[in-house]
């Protein structure tokens, strides 16, 4: 069957932190096909030209859930949508996490925590490390608690542990057989190094500005051992050992 852009209906919308929106849309085909770590490519409105990639947070039956922060014109426009409005979505796109039957650490930083929720549901008692800048930005704690032990860090110590998630991860690393991560590049880089030192598997989800979202334009590349790989098609999830972070 041919793929297509889906016209979905917004059925629930909530601002869960400042400028951070939790959207639930009716999207039966996307919801049924989605796997953890995949993303959608969203037409935000008439005021922006390109679609915007947003990771899939969760699915339930016919409902697709995604969370985004206002970071530019596109996301600002998307945040204007009201319950009952329609949203044009391509997806699910890309290669998500490869689920392994191993003792798992999930590590998310900032908006990078959202794609980990659907993954957490599929794993057995994962340890979930969530990092935020400050208390006001802490989101989804209750959602994650249903699926594993949650360890929250804030940069300023206003909630949970003070510091970065990576420090908490390091303390407990003996209990870890695989890392799944999404978040800022310095965090991913540190996890890649840690995983390599310890000889454990580490899957990381990457972001880049995108054009087509389907592998046709070569806009969205990251450097890997093979050269430049398309994040939208070969990723967004890569084995950390393949990815080359320069500078």
């Amino acid at each position, binding site marked *: 069957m041919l793929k297509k*852009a889906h016209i979905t209906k917004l059925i629930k919308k909530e601002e869960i932190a400042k400028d951070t929106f939790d959207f639930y849309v009716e999207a039966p085909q996307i919801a049924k096909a989605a796997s953890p770590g995949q993303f959608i490519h969203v037409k935000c409105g008439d005021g922006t*030209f*390109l679609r915007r990639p947003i990771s899939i947070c969760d699915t339930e039956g016919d409902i697709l859930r995604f969370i985004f922060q206002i970071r530019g014109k596109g996301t600002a426009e998307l945040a204007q949508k009201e319950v009952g409005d329609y949203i044009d979505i*391509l997806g699910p796109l890309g290669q998500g996490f490869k689920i392994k039957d191993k003792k798992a650490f999930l590590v998310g930083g900032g908006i990078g925590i959202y794609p980990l929720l659907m993954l957490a549901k599929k794993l057995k008692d994962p340890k979930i490390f969530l990092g935020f800048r400050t208390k006001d930005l802490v989101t989804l704690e209750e959602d994650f608690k249903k699926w594993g032990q949650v360890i929250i860090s804030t940069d300023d110590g206003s909630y949970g542990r003070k510091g970065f998630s990576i420090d908490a991860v390091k303390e407990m690393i003996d209990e870890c057989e695989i890392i799944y991560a999404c978040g800022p590049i310095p965090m991913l880089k540190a996890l890649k190094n840690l995983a390599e030192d310890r000889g454990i598997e580490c899957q990381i989800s990457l972001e880049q*500005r995108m054009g087509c979202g389907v592998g046709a334009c070569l806009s*969205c590349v990251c450097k890997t051992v093979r050269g430049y790989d398309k994040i939208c098609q070969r990723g967004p999830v890569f084995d950390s050992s393949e990815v080359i972070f320069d500078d």
Partner: protein
Amino acid sequence: MTNLSVNFCGVNFKNPVVSVSGTFNFGLEYGMYFDLNQLGGITVKGLTLKPRLGNPPPRIAETPCGILNSIGLQNPGVEAFLKNELPMIRKYNTNIIANIAGNTIEEYCEMAKILSESGVDLIEMNISCPNVKEGGVHFGTDPKMVAKITSKVKKYCKKPLIVKLSPNVSDIKAIAKAAEENGADALSLINTILGMRIDINTKRPILRNNVGGLSGPAIKPVAVRMVYEAKQSVSIPIIGMGGIMCGDDAVEFMLAGATLVGVGTASFINPTACVDVIDGIKKYMEKHNINDVNSLTGGVIAY
């Protein structure tokens, strides 16, 4: 009965719509969204003699009604294309246009020679890529250079040779004429217009390459004007492109003088843009009682 088929350089196209180079990879990605057999033709991603890494990311930035890109011709090289990609798209009943770019005239000639022995239907010579240091646009901005490269490549090219022109020139008519006089069988235009965007908070360009090529509706009026001007100065056929989003846009290009029309950036927003453009042309023809799509070409009633 509306006739959509077009004879272009002796090759039959079932309709005048082709995908343009660089926005359609080697076809298979959009083949998941519509039946590629519906297309008049597929222009593949720009090829170089040897594999090419391309520019560092970010490679794309949004602009009002368009995008800037600085891909830098990332591709697996002409040999890998022939071995791995061409057999896959050749299965479809559509014309395949190979798009080539080189650092030197010799590289263009070598590629034309190799591709002439292959299963591609036409060869498009890109002398207008703004995103590579050597070659590329440097061959396309001076009529003398265009004359030289066209006449040399023509000697090795056994397939219809399309010369793809840059809009980053002061006199498109002189460039078009130089290509025609030296053996081009057709022209395609326009490639992207050089542009730039700066993040005012970081004072850094958005593109890692600093500058890039502008495409999409933002460039359409420039493209229509250039197709119109080129048409005035040559008698070889033209593939018109630059910001086509729908059938009406395509008709505008045909009226300006295009025989075929190319759809590029539009696919990023609407993955079925190419076939929607075909349908749109058909609707326009029905509405205006036009039987033959060929009658549109050059049909503008200019003042």
